């Protein structure tokens, strides 16, 4: 894996990357953002198809084409 370090004039590239976020600092982000992002994917990918949180089919109908074209099973 060679990276073109030569073309970067300003920062002397450190040879070995070091972690930028501690695992402890990462945990709350993973929990909260992970839940919110999973919910977003769920509503695009599956709500009012196999399972329903809201009654009716407005969510399904709105994202219908996206669900198909992203490759989720739709109906």
């Amino acid at each position, binding site marked *: *894996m060679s*990276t073109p370090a030569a073309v970067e004039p300003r*920062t002397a*590239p450190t040879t*070995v*990357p*070091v*972690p*930028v*976020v501690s*695992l402890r*600092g*990462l945990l709350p*982000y*993973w929990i909260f*953002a*992970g839940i*919110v*992002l*999973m919910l*977003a*994917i769920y*509503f*695009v*990918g*599956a709500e009012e*198809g*196999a*399972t329903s949180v809201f009654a*009716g*089919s*407005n969510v399904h*109908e*709105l*994202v*219908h*084409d*996206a*669900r*198909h*074209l*992203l*490759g*989720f*099973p*739709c*109906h």
Partner: protein
Amino acid sequence: MMRTLLVRGMLAGLLAGVLAFLWAHLVGEPPVRAAIAVEEAAAAKTAVTGAAEEAPAITRSTQETWGLGVGVVLFSVAIGGFLALVFAMVYGRVGVLRARGTVLAICAIGFVAIVLAPLTKYPANPPAVGSGDTIDERTGFFFVLVMIALAAAVAAVRLGRQLAPRIGAGNALAAAVLLFVVLIGVAHVALPAQNEVRAGFPPQVLWDFRLANLGTQAILWSALAFGFGLAAEAAVEGRPLLARRGAGERATVPSR
């Protein structure tokens, strides 16, 4: 730092989502329309038997534009957010790749595990294909396969890391790919087959639709790799997004 990465990941997702939406709208909608036409023709032929044209609360033109856009962009932003979370976790911990290489590797693995591995067993189907009776199990098996593929990808990366010092990076990569392919092959054989395509459905429409699906996802993931690659590199070097470099790549600067 995590805040910066997460914001940039979702921004990259937004941009990637817009590009993927354009593709899906321009290339994906024609086969969707064709499939709906086939469905309606079939429904008209089998007459009244309750093919139940439910009055649409949301019109087709809304589905093809705003609905498609909302769905694709929302999905893309979510994937961008996860990309940022995974990047923060593995950067500097797994492997020696720098920021852009790390992002590219995550996106390549993610695309293979989340898109290609499930798609080769349960390909995307246009409207009119698939019966409502089996949607539960089809959705279930689809997500099971995604989970298996993600687990297989983690296993493959672990194997590659363990082997790399002993047999070299190239051989370790080949071994990791082999492990992944074998695991996915086993999963494909073990999971039940699904074939919802009814006889007489025009094959060209099916092919066009499936290519459009693959293209949508390929654009989404590659644009994400490109956009977040630059953004994450800037982040770990402590640069703002709109430094001299990257002009034209994006127009917005997230506040730190």
